[in-house]
């Protein structure tokens, strides 16, 4: 496709733009289903306890209460990996775990009912630290997971899912190394992704085996499938509302759906389960806790000879994504560090706190944030510029890696060296890099430092997508892709792709509502797969529809379909389209009166192409207060081809949000191990970046064509956070001349490192 594109890469307002700025977009809390009840949860005060007795009599008597459910009367539905969480249980495993559910005519009545439920608990010992949880006499969370260890297998990724990195001969690699660094680092501050909109699900039973859910879902079809299997193979229709931010956290909505569906079943009315922001903080999704202990051997020239270590992963009381994150994290580390000798041993551990799940990224950020500080010790010893190191060591075309399915994949991607160089140039890396633990500049108590981070992921082509493209006789088009809008503008980007294939004004193209009833299977916009995987399915569907249209028109025009083309809703013989002389017919003339035409497209997984992002950060540290000022960020990437520049830049800026860069500066979930509680479940004590703390932010976006689909493009949204926390650590360490490895670098830690506290 060398011809100038009409829409791809061009500035076109998002289809939902006017709705968003007018307040007309329908988010889950804006939906009203007739007869809808409101659900509330009684949450455990204990981190680990058995319910000895639970009395709901008084709560049930409260006027306006329609149902009160406990573990004794909830359906037997199960989720988790392997399946271990029911709707309710007689054991609560974190402070905030559900002990009882209430549905009432209003939120206020439901809350009041919670106060009337009496629970007698037998308090059990609890464990929060990942190493303590592995000790022999540690409290055990689940009988079926002895030692608090979850199995690492991730069956949905295949029978051989990646469970670590094991290859080559580590001993030999270390023997051949010039420099060996050994150490440990924790990334366990459990930042909260915290999209602005809390998660919500409305459930309504249409029949005993037929459930409809409306959800603030990132992946509505995936929710349908999850619930289908978790709830005894029932038939589920899943409809997504506008999604007020997700960052991966609104993919696995099964738990809210369980609560809403159980109450809806008990009351025979629709039930809405919408978390408060407080619940969103304290009883929803955090990043994984990650601890790495190991060693790295390198040559003087920066070649990596061996990597060995233990990776301890704390997933809280439940796992449904962590196994997959271990697999992908291990894959991602190999993309960043070319090495032939590996031994990375993960252990996945449960503890008595709120669950960790995927958060803008899928394991790599957690692993790398803990691994890179150890790697950096080796680079520091060898006095190696990290830019040179990453330039040399990031995966190149022809390199291989074990990916999540356990298979060896060879990269068909491009060399990202050019993007790294361009990023370094824009940032001024050469001038600013003064060596390890050396500030770029000092001005009184202010010390400036720079750091760098890189990340890539070969999930841009993960999993299956299907799409239909329906041509209407009035020369409009409907895309059927079960894709909700969660902020990336992907629904609009798909319109651009189809408009390009069918050479049709974009106004004539729309996307069917994100409803599993009217759309085919779609895994969802995760792992930056929207552009390549979903895009491919939609493009193929559009091409298929176009082919069928031209074939049908060929019989009308009595020519071969190969001789026909379509543009702006007209069909004509190729080469004669522009002129007035050529014969043209309208779509409806080709299709037949009031007929439609459906194209089908699909995408099968392909892990041979990766995306890439390098960030450069500059910080200022006030050595008299310990405060870090993020002064500048440059994000450099190569996306093959820009589909939508505004959406792309917005996504790159996203590295400052959703448990990303600021998890190295001030984002953390503060936990009190004496109480087993998080102390800052509110938006004042949980720190987020405001309009007053915006660094200068530059993006470098190259367009080296990729072997993906006709637009030669890949997505990048998922990976923007991962390179940032270790980059900040590096920058601050360089600024103050002290090696730091304690996320987040709050003033107390900086001042302590400087000997002032």
């Amino acid at each position, binding site marked *: 496709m060398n011809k100038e594109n009409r829409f791809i890469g061009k500035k076109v307002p998002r289809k939902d733009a006017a709705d968003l700025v007018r307040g007309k977009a329908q988010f889950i809390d804006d939906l009203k289903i007739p007869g809808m009840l409101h659900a509330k949860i009684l949450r455990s005060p204990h981190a680990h306890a058995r319910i000895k007795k639970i009395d709901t009599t008084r709560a049930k008597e409260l006027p306006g209460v329609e149902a009160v459910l406990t573990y004794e009367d909830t359906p037997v539905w199960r989720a988790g990996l392997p399946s271990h969480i029911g709707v309710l249980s007689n054991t609560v495993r974190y402070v905030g775990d559900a002990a009882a559910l209430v549905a009432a005519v209003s939120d*206020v009545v439901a*809350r009041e009912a919670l106060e009337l439920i009496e629970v007698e608990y037998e308090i059990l010992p609890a464990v929060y630290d990942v190493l303590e949880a592995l000790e022999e006499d540690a409290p055990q969370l689940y009988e079926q997971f002895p030692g608090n260890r979850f199995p690492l297998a991730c069956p949905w990724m295949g029978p051989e899912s990646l469970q670590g990195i094991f290859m080559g001969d580590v001993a030999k690699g270390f023997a051949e190394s010039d420099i060996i660094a050994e150490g440990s680092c924790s990334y366990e501050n459990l930042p909260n992704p915290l999209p602005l909109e809390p998660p919500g699900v409305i459930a309504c039973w249409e029949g005993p085996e037929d459930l409809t859910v409306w959800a603030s879902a990132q992946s509505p079809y995936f929710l349908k499938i999850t619930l289908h299997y978790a709830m005894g193979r029932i038939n589920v229709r899943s409809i997504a509302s506008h999604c007020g931010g997700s960052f991966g956290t609104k993919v696995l909505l099964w738990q809210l759906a369980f609560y809403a569906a159980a109450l809806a079943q008990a009351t025979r009315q629709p039930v809405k389960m919408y978390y408060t922001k407080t*619940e969103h903080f304290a009883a929803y999704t955090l990043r994984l806790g990650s601890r790495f202990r190991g060693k790295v051997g390198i040559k003087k020239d920066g070649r990596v000879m061996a990597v060995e270590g233990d990776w301890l992963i704390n997933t809280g009381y439940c796992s449904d994504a962590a196994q997959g994150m271990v697999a992908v994290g291990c894959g991602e580390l190999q993309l960043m560090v070319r090495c032939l000798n590996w031994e990375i041993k993960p252990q996945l551990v449960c503890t008595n706190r709120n669950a960790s799940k995927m958060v803008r990224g899928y394991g790599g950020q957690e692993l790398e944030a803990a691994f890179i500080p150890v790697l950096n010790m080796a680079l520091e010893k060898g006095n190696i510029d990290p830019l040179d190191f990453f330039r040399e060591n990031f995966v190149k075309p022809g390199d291989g890696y074990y990916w999540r399915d356990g298979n060896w994949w060879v990269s068909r991607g491009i060399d990202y060296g050019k993007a790294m160089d361009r990023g370094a140039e824009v940032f001024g890396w050469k001038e600013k890099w003064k060596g390890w633990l050396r500030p770029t500049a000092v001005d009184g108590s202010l010390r400036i430092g720079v750091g760098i981070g890189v990340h890539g992921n070969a999930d841009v082509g993960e999993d299956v997508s299907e799409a239909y493209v329906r041509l209407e006789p009035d020369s409009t088009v409907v895309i059927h892709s079960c894709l909700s809008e969660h902020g990336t503008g992907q629904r609009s980007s798909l319109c651009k792709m189809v408009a390009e294939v069918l050479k049709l004004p974009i106004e004539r193209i729309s996307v069917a509502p994100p409803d599993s009833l009217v759309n085919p299977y779609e895994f969802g916009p995760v792992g930056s797969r929207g552009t390549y995987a979903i895009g491919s399915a939609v493009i193929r569907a559009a091409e298929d529809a176009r082919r069928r249209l031209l074939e049908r028109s060929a019989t009308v025009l009595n020519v071969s379909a190969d001789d026909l083309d379509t543009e702006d809703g007209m069909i004509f013989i190729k080469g004669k389209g522009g002129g007035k002389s050529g014969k043209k017919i309208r779509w409806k003339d080709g299709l037949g009166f009031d007929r439609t035409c459906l194209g089908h497209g699909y995408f099968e997984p392909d892990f041979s192409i990766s995306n890439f992002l390098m960030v450069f950060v500059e910080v200022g540290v006030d050595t008299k207060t*310990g405060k870090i000022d993020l002064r500048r960020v440059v994000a450099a990437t190569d996306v093959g081809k820009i589909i939508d520049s505004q959406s792309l830049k917005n996504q790159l800026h996203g590295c400052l949000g959703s448990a990303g860069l600021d998890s190295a500066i001030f984002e953390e979930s503060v936990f009190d191990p*004496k109480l087993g509680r998080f102390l800052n479940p509110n938006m004042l*004590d949980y*720190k987020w*970046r405001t309009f*007053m703390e915006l660094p200068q932010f530059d993006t470098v976006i190259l367009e080296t064509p990729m072997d993906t689909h006709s637009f030669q493009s890949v997505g990048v949204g998922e990976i923007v956070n991962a390179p940032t926390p270790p980059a900040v650590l590096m920058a601050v360490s360089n600024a103050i001349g002290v090696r730091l490895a304690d996320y987040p670098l709050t003033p107390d830690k900086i001042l302590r490192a400087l000997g002032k*506290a």
Partner: protein
Amino acid sequence: MRSFQHINVFTLEEAVSVLKDSGGKAQVIAGGTDIIGVLKEQILPDYPEILLNIKAIPDLDYIKKDHEGLRIGPLAKLAGLAKSPAVREKYGALAQAARSVGSPQIRNMATIGGNLCQETRCWYYRYPHSIGGRLLCLRKGSGSCLAVNGDNRYHALFDARRCFAACPSDVAVALLLLGAEINILGIGGKRTVYLQDFFHPLGNALEPGEIIGGIHIPTPPVGAKQQFLKFTLRKPIDFAVVSAAALIVLDGGICTEARIALGAVAPGPRRFPEAENFLKGKRLETNVLEKAAGIALEGAKPLSKNGYKIEIAKTLISRALSACLENESFNH
């Protein structure tokens, strides 16, 4: 929110009368920026039966200059204080403190009276009821201070004995610096307390049935320069980790009067007489300022995790004093 009765009152006397009659079951609502959150999260075991709206009382949002200084009505909004020419002219630290609070929306709603009466931000005290139940502690009349052996990074360095919650008010720091008095109305009539006596280790000086009737700030000394500074992790939104305010008067380069106040380091805002005395009679060179800051923090008694606040407090004191020397915008 759980239900309550809502009563509008139209005079302060009426407010006092309702408070008295309610027998402790009524609570005053002014700007609402603190109390609504407290009620929504149900952080306290007691829940008011009555919410007493004093916003309907006319003319209580005044900011008036008179020959004795400045008079501020309890309903004066923080946005108004930050903008007021009268405040900015001679009471610059107060304008700066008011401007440092919350966000523009909060400042459009929050009142000075409410700012002084707000509940502490101690995260144990504020723990939400909906996640496993509220936490009880000494301040709530049951148990001990959970911060002592917990995460006390934001807690008090001074004067705390059994409860280590710090006073969150920025405005109070400026008012203390400027020697403000609080007029209190109650059943027995009016009384006046100095700002330093308003805050108590477990709350404030308001007895049941009492309400803030107004605030008076005496005219600062001629030639006084003042500065308020606040250390937070983010510029807007945050409550202070430490805040500091300084006022100095120079005569021929020699300091004749010095006042230093710190916020968020004690149950109330706190002055530092030894450090202030140290500055008097001296030329205020950088090393003198730093020495004074050191003297101020000598008595600090850090807990396990808040020791870093000492260094920050010292820095803020030095910087606030330096700013007084440099900053001409608040001179007069």
